[in-house]
């Protein structure tokens, strides 16, 4: 019985006692019956009202239940936040907004990493080199003329850790690249896969590890089955003739060709997990 119901019963009891004190008075049987009916009605009405109000109150829950509910909701919210985060990455990259891109990465969690098709950048400082030195800059209008890179994140699989502290996600990205060499623009279909780990810093989700996997990069007028390319070449998709500032070679290098088998673990599909460990990192 709720506290409100108990309070109502106490009030009713008090009324009854007050009325009983009038026993010194001679009250006819009829008036006693009237009092009884009135009192009973009041109690019934009060119990009904208190019961109705009790039904609208959430069932009391322990602190553990409350914490569990909060965590479940936060994990659902994390899925949305992570999708927004990665989608922003694609918008910023299309417009060469590199400072905005870097801000999407974890700023003070050890192990921040980005793996492009041409190599790996370990640590936040290297990640900054990746986007500030090895990508086109927004301010460089001359080099950006005619360049267009569009990645579209689809088919998401996102898993948030049971502890709510990290998350993992993969996407398929139909897209295109357009490079310019000697004043001539070259259009390519560029389909990739994205794998990423995320970590929460100061209440906001950040990209912790980003790994871009190839599917095919082919001239507009040649199908992926006609292409001769089996490995990605940085010069085809980034700054022509530019020396990259990677820390090490890429860990994956698959690209479609007539004699390759589609890899089933690049990236691996994230499964539900409780706590992140480095072995599962992208």
């Amino acid at each position, binding site marked *: 019985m709720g506290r409100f119901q108990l309070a109502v019963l106490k009030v009713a009891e008090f009324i009854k006692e007050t009325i009983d004190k*009038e026993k010194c*008075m001679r009250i006819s049987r009829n008036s006693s019956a009237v009092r009884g009916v009135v009192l009973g009605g*009041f109690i019934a009405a009060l119990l009904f009202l208190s019961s109705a109000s009790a039904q609208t109150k959430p069932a009391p829950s322990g602190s553990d239940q409350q914490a569990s509910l909060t965590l479940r909701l936060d994990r659902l919210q994390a899925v949305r936040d992570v*999708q927004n985060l990665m989608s922003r990455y694609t918008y910023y990259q299309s417009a060469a*907004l590199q400072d905005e891109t870097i801000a999407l990465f974890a700023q003070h969690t050890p192990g921040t990493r980005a793996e492009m098709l041409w190599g790996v950048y370990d640590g936040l400082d290297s990640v900054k080199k990746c986007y500030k030195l090895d990508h086109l800059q927004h301010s460089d209008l001359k080099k950006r*003329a005619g360049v267009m890179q569009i990645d579209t994140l689809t088919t998401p699989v996102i898993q948030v850790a049971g502890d709510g502290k990290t998350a993992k996600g993969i996407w398929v990205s139909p897209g295109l690249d357009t490079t310019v060499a000697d004043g001539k623009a070259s259009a390519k279909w560029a389909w990739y896969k994205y794998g990423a780990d995320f970590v929460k810093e100061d209440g906001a989700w950040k990209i912790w590890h980003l790994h871009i996997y190839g599917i095919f990069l082919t001239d507009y007028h040649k199908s992926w089955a006609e292409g001769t390319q089996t490995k990605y070449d940085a010069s085809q998709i980034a700054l022509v003739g530019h020396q990259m500032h990677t820390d090490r070679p890429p860990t994956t290098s698959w690209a479609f060709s007539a004699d390759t088998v589609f890899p089933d673990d690049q990236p691996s599909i994230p499964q539900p997990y409780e706590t992140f460990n480095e072995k599962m990192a992208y």
Partner: protein
Amino acid sequence: MKFPTRQERCLKKREDSMTELRAVRRTLLCGLCLCLVAPLFALAARAQSAAKSREEIQIERLEAIHDIENLMSEYYWMHASDQMKDYLMAYHTPGARVTNDLHEQSMAQTEKNTSSKQGLDRDARRIEMRSSPGFLHVHLEGSPVIELAADGKSARGTWISPGLEADPPGMTPGPAGHRTTVGYWAWAKLGAEFVKENGQWRIWHLHVYSLFMTPYGQSWAEADPNSEGGGSPASSGPPGGAQASGGPPGGGGQGSGGPAGAGAPGGGGAPGAGGPPREEEAPLDKSTLPISEKWLYTPTAVYPDAKPLPPVPYNTYQFDRNTTY
């Protein structure tokens, strides 16, 4: 022992009756007070329970984002089958509009047609008129960024939309015309703002930001650098030009040499020469329209600054021509 007289008995009986009457009165008065107080207690208890918990608010916000994602997807499912349903648009909120800068005709529509229910209705009718063999309009929605206002009353979102279209002969008289059904790419980015009407989320402002429209046999890189539609910020006209340069019904120009006058992912595409006569309309207040530069890829064009910029968290919707979609 002295027996009371008849008069005394009467007086005593009367006194007893009065005492009983007073007791009944007190009881009734007490009951009346309780009747007044008890509902107040109950109302207070209900009010306490009606105050939403953090969890309830969070659930409602997640539901809103889910509804909005479904709404936008439904819009393009309907568009693919050349349908338009009233229930998708915010007809009852002032300022509802569709802006499509994928080609000239849509820009004209932006200026003329889409600031009111009347305009949106006509868009719907025009789309219905396109429902004939040979039309194909498939537009995907990827890279979603959806932000719900802190006050929960509005939302903003962006998408990247790869797409393709086909038009039957005669309906899209491009520069050279065509005698067979033509297929072409129609890639764009989408920016949209949403409001809740009668408990349902609706599209309030929808803006289709062009990327390229090219016939299947021609890549976007082969677009004519001097074509009308494409351009860098320096060559694409003054801010707001998209609203100021509406072409004639069925008119041609569009940036990349693709078929002009085709349907566009925003739903605002007019059927070119086959369209209905334009109706007289009141001038549109351009101060209520987004500042937007028409952009289509050409080999000399500089990609625009992520227009639309994906939304960031915000408290309450405030109109700004520079940021509205």
